[in-house]
């Protein structure tokens, strides 16, 4: 049985299950729980050029079947990652995909070139970040802006470039097309959905940052729809992200058109879920007599 999937030239995952950015840190903690070599790929916490402190606490809040986070992209910065974390992380024999972000086009481009080092298998560009020059509107909310941003980054890296779309847009298909036109090799679809929580007793927002992003099972039906929509609009591989907790969820995302699936919030709740998910997919393929994961990708039968 062949569980491998191809995401970009030179980027083949041994199975379609990845960690998600921001719920796996830089891998150290999980490596004490299970062999990271089992994963299809590792996606790191989002990195910026310089270390970033993040938002005031509280940064997370539980909601029905989900959670809102407003971590604020706290990270150690690209250099500290490359020197301090990458050497161990690449030793597991699993592709290391580095998530990154900036606050201007130049930031992104500079960071992309900084990340063009050995041991990084691909880079995943988080575009759910305020564009400081555009009055704070997120890069991922305007196809023009996204096209230019992707092009600027593409010009500075030889790595496979994955663009991670923001879900809350009027036309996700257009965003995916813009990313593809700008030179993306693959799309991650999608990120957390903007959300907030209010304490009716104190009349205050619960999160230190007021608003945050919703993730977990609550949003899976939305993510599934976005993946399906994107898969009809672009021919590059899609990595699904949003609420996947079980192998069943992953198979659904594959059928909708994803080539791989990131597991985020589920691994906060159940850090050992990765192995269950991977074996679950294997058993599913076996029980259906399928030779390859690719036999599932985009195979949804619509009327």
């Amino acid at each position: 049985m062949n569980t491998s999937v191809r995401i970009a030239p030179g980027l083949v995952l041994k199975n379609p299950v990845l960690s998600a950015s921001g719920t796996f840190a830089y891998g150290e903690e999980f490596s004490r729980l299970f062999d990271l070599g089992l994963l299809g790929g590792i996606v790191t916490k989002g990195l910026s050029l310089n270390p970033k402190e993040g938002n005031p606490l509280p940064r997370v809040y539980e909601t029905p079947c989900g959670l809102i986070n407003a971590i604020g992209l706290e990270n150690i910065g690209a250099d500290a990652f490359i020197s301090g974390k990458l050497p161990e992380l690449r030793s597991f024999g699993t592709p290391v995909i580095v998530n990154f972000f900036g606050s201007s086009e130049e930031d992104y481009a500079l960071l992309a070139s900084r990340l063009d080092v050995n041991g990084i298998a691909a880079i995943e560009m988080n575009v759910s970040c305020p564009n400081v020059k555009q009055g704070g509107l997120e890069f991922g909310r305007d196809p023009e802006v996204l096209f230019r941003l992707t092009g600027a980054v593409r010009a500075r890296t030889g790595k496979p470039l994955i663009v991670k779309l923001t879900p809350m847009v009027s036309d996700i298909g257009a965003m995916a097309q813009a990313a593809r036109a700008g030179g993306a090799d693959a799309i991650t679809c999608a990120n957390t959905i903007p959300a907030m929580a209010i304490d009716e007793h104190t009349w205050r927002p619960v999160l230190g940052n007021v608003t945050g992003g919703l993730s977990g099972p609550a949003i899976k039906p939305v993510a599934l729809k976005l993946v399906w929509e994107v898969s009809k609009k672009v021919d590059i591989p899609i990595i699904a992200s949003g609420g996947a907790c079980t192998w069943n969820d992953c198979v659904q995302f594959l059928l909708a058109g994803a080539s791989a699936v990131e597991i985020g919030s589920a691994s906060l709740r159940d850090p050992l879920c990765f192995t269950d998910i991977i074996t679950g997919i294997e058993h599913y393929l076996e029980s259906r007599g399928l030779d390859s994961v690719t036999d599932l990708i985009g195979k949804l039968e619509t009327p």
Partner: protein
Amino acid sequence: MNDVLAVVKGNRAVARDTFLMDLDCALEPSLPGQFLMVKVSSSCELFLRRPLAILGQGEGTLEILYKLKGEGTLELSRKKPGDVLWVLGPLGNCFSPPQNGESALFVAGGTGLPPVLALASRVGSGALVIGARSKGDIPLLDRMNSLKGVAVYPVTEDGSLGRRGMATDVLGELLAGAAGPCAVYACGPRGMLEKACELSGVAAARCEVSLEEYMACGFGVCSACTVKTSAGPRRVCSNGPVFDAATIAWGAR
């Protein structure tokens, strides 16, 4: 650390809105101050696990003590003997025992008793100040009183047991009256910890605090619980929960 299945053996109210739960569970050995991430429900409606300190650990057994706060602890309180739970642990660091002849001053309030009591039981000497609103809010008084070598000072806001006032009032007096060097170990509301830190500073006592912050993972991967310290940002779950109080940037949050 590992994710292990625990079987509920007992689960009973031991003070107002406070429950003591006994579990059968093959957890790795833990140290006072360490905690668990408890999966309170198999339903993902309550998505996050809840951080709870390890009150006691025996051969294949665990003890936790929790206050009813919201949905998660309510769900816990409904568990009956025979029910099962997943617990991830042991997590975090631990208190460092008194050194060089320090006498130990334990201070607990709110949900902070479990780690402090775990440590006091291990250390077996010193003084334990337990603060609460009222007598009925203080659990396990018998157990505290039976700790040989540990003097117990209950403090209540309404004066219904022990001194009337705040736990830190008594801490201040104990520090003032101490003959030699002291180590203060505190867990409870942030205001109490900050005060304990301040009093310890004045008395040149070493002070360790166990912090409580909202957590998502509990093992260091999500950065939900990062606090500012003089040594830079630190994750309460994996760099703590126990910190040298003097390093905490109390003003920032």
